[in-house]
C-alpha cells in the first residue's frame, strides 16, 4: 500500500524534512547531519522501490496528486527512464551527503552549516521532483526550486562565489523563463499541461509554426540548465567557486537531470518523428555537440586548476549525451541514457576527489600535486578509476556508454560525430595523464636520487574516513556499473528508448 505512495513521498519527504531540519538546528546543531542522511536514506529506499515496481509491472506508474484525475490534476508518471534516473540521483546524493560532512565543516563557518544542509535537501527535492513529474508546469516549479537552492548554495563558496552565483541567477532565470514560454506556447495550442496528454494532442499540430517556436524555447531553456555549448558559460565559474561538497552534488546531478528533461521533451512529449523527420533538429544538435566537445576539450587543456578543468569536462560529457540523442537511433539513445547514469558517477568521483585534495592540501593547481602519491594514495587511486572511466578504459562504466554512442553514430552514418567521440577520448587521456603524471611521478634531475634505496615513501595523511568511504563506494560503483551495464540495459534502458526506434 505504502509503495504506491512512493512517487509522491520521494519528493515530499525531503521538502518537509528540510524545514524540520532548519527548525531543529535552532535547538541542536548536531542533529542536522543525521537528519540529512536519514532523509536521503529514505529517499533511496523510495527510489529503489519505485524502480522495482516499474520493472515488475513493465508499465509506467501513474500517481495522481491529491486524487485529481489528469489532465486537470497534476500527475506523476514514472516509467523506466525516470525510475533509473531517480535511483541514480538518490544513490549519488546519498554518497555525496556522506562525503559532505567533513568537507563542509572545514570550508564553511559553523553558523552556516544548518543552512547548507537545508539547501542540500531542497536541492534534492527539486531534482527528484523534476525527474518524477509528468506535468509540464510542475516541472517548471520544481526546476526553479532546484535552481534556487543551487544559486544559494553556490554563493556560500570562495571569494567570487557570490558574483558567480549572481550571474548564474541571471542566466538561469533566462533559461527557466524560456522553458516557461515553451510551456505557454504548448498550452495555448493544446490547452493541456500533462505530458501524456500533450503527446496525443501535439501530432495533429505538427505543421504549426507556433509549435516549432515553443519547441525552440524548450531547447534553449533546458539547454541553459543542462550546460550545452554555447549556453554553458555560467558553468565554469559557478561550479569552480562553489564549496567542494556543492560541486560534488551539483556537477553530477543537476546537468544530467537537465539531459533527462530534454530526452523527455524530445521523445515523449513531442513525438520523435518531429525532431527526426520533420525538422532538422538532430543535425543541428549534432553540430552543436561536436563544436561543443571540441571547444570544451580545448578549454580544459588550458586549465591548471583541476576543478575548472573538470567543469569543462562536464560540458564535454553533455556533448556526448547530445551526440547520443542526435544519432536518433536505438543504439545512440541507449548510449545517451546509459551515459547519463554513468556520468553521474564519474563526475561525483572526480569532484569528490578534487574536494578531498583541496581539503588536505589547500590547492587545486595541478602543478602543485607533486607528493600526493605519498600522502593521499587512496584518494589518487579513486581519481585514477574516475579518470580511466572518462577516457574509456574497460571495465569502467565510461567505456560501455562510449561503446553504444560509437555504435549509434556508425548506424546513423554520422562520421563527424564518430571522429569527435574518438578524438575527444584521446584529449581526455592527455588531460588526465597530465594530472596523474604530476601526482605520481616526481620529476628528478638527470642523475639525481635515482638510487636512493626505495626508503619507505608513503606517509599517510589522508582525508577523514567518511570522505574516504564515500569516495571508495563511488569508485566501486563505477566499476560495478561497467560490469553490469548489460543488466541495466536489458532490464531498464531497452524499455526506456521509444518503441518507434
Amino acid at each position: 500500500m505504502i509503495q504506491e505512495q512512493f512517487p509522491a513521498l520521494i519528493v515530499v519527504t525531503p521538502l518537509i524534512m528540510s524545514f524540520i531540519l532548519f527548525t531543529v538546528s535552532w535547538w541542536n546543531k548536531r542533529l542536522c547531519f543525521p537528519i540529512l542522511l536519514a532523509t536521503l536514506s529514505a529517499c533511496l529506499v523510495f527510489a529503489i522501490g519505485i524502480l522495482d515496481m516499474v520493472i515488475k509491472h513493465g508499465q509506467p506508474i501513474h500517481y495522481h496528486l491529491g486524487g485529481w484525475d489528469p489532465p486537470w490534476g497534476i500527475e506523476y508518471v514514472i516509467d523506466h527512464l525516470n525510475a533509473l534516473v531517480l535511483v541514480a540521483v538518490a544513490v549519488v546524493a546519498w554518497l555525496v551527503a556522506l562525503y559532505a560532512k567533513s568537507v563542509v565543516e572545514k570550508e564553511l563557518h559553523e553558523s552556516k552549516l544548518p543552512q547548507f544542509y537545508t539547501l542540500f535537501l531542497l536541492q534534492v527535492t527539486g531534482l527528484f521532483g523534476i525527474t518524477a513529474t509528468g506535468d509540464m508546469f510542475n516541472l517548471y516549479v520544481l526546476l526553479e526550486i532546484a535552481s534556487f537552492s543551487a544559486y544559494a548554495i553556490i554563493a556560500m563558496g570562495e571569494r567570487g562565489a557570490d558574483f558567480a552565483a549572481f550571474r548564474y541567477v541571471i542566466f538561469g532565470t533566462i533559461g527557466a523563463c524560456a522553458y516557461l514560454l515553451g510551456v505557454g506556447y504548448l498550452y495555448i495550442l493544446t490547452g493541456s499541461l500533462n505530458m501524456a496528454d500533450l503527446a496525443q494532442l501535439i501530432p495533429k499540430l505538427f505543421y504549426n509554426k507556433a509549435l516549432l517556436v515553443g519547441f525552440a524555447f524548450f531547447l534553449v531553456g533546458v539547454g541553459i540548465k543542462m550546460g550545452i555549448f554555447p549556453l554553458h558559460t555560467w558553468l565554469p565559474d559557478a561550479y569552480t567557486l562553489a564549496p567542494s561538497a556543492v560541486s560534488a552534488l551539483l556537477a553530477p546531478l543537476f546537468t544530467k537531470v537537465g539531459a533527462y528533461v530534454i530526452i523527455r521533451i524530445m521523445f515523449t512529449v513531442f513525438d520523435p518523428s518531429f525532431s527526426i523527420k520533420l525538422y532538422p533538429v538532430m543535425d543541428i544538435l549534432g553540430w552543436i555537440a561536436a563544436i561543443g566537445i571540441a571547444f570544451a576539450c580545448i578549454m580544459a587543456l588550458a586549465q591548471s586548476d583541476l576543478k575548472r578543468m573538470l567543469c569543462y569536462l562536464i560540458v564535454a560529457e553533455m556533448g556526448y549525451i547530445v551526440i547520443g540523442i542526435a544519432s536518433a537511433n536505438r543504439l545512440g539513445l541507449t548510449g545517451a541514457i546509459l551515459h547519463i547514469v554513468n556520468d553521474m558517477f564519474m563526475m561525483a568521483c572526480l569532484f569528490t576527489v578534487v574536494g578531498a585534495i583541496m581539503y588536505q592540501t589547500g590547492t587545486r593547481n595541478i602543478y602543485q600535486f607533486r607528493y600526493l602519491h605519498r600522502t593521499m594514495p587512496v584518494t589518487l587511486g579513486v581519481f585514477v578509476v574516475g579518470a580511466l572511466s572518462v577516457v574509456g578504459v574497460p571495465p569502467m562504466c565510461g567505456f560501455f556508454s562510449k561503446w553504444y554512442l560509437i555504435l549509434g553514430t556508425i548506424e546513423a552514418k554520422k562520421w563527424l560525430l564518430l571522429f569527435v567521440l574518438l578524438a575527444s577520448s584521446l584529449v581526455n587521456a592527455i588531460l588526465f595523464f597530465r594530472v596523474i603524471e604530476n601526482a605520481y611521478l616526481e620529476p628528478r634531475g638527470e642523475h639525481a636520487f635515482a638510487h636512493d634505496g626505495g626508503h619507505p615513501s608513503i606517509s599517510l595523511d589522508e582525508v577523514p574516513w567518511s570522505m574516504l568511504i564515500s569516495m571508495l563506494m563511488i569508485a566501486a560503483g563505477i566499476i560495478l556499473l561497467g560490469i553490469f551495464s548489460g543488466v541495466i540495459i536489458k532490464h531498464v534502458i531497452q524499455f526506456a528508448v521509444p518503441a518507434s526506434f
Partner: protein
Amino acid sequence: MWELILSKYNYWIYALLLIIGFYAMMAKNNLLKKLIGMNIFQWALIFYFISIAAKKGGTVPIIPGVHGHHGAEHLVVHAADYINPLPHVLMLTAIVVGVATTGIALALLINIYRRYGTLEEDEVIEELKR
C-alpha cells in the same frame, strides 16, 4: 497587415517587454539594473500568460451560490462565459517564483556590495582579479 498587429497587440507588448528585459540583463553594467531587467523579463512572461486567459465578454470564473461538488454537478456551464482561470493560477506560482528569485538575487547583491564596495560588473571583475 495592420489587422495582424492590432488584433494581437498583447503579444507585441509582451515581446517588447521581453526584449527590453533581455537587453537590460545583457547590456547593462550595473548589477542592480540587470536584476531589474530580469524582473521585467519575468513580468513580460506573466503578462503574456494572463493575456491569453482573457475572453471577450467573459466574467469572473466563479459559479455563484454553490459549494464544492454538491450542487455544481447539475449546472451546465458554457466555457465561453468565463475567463480561463488556469493561467492565472499558474502565474500566481510564477509570481512567487519571481519573488523568490528576486529575493535571492538581492541577498547576493547585498553581499557583493559589502565585499567589493561596488555594484558595477566590470569593477567587481577587476576586484576579483586581484
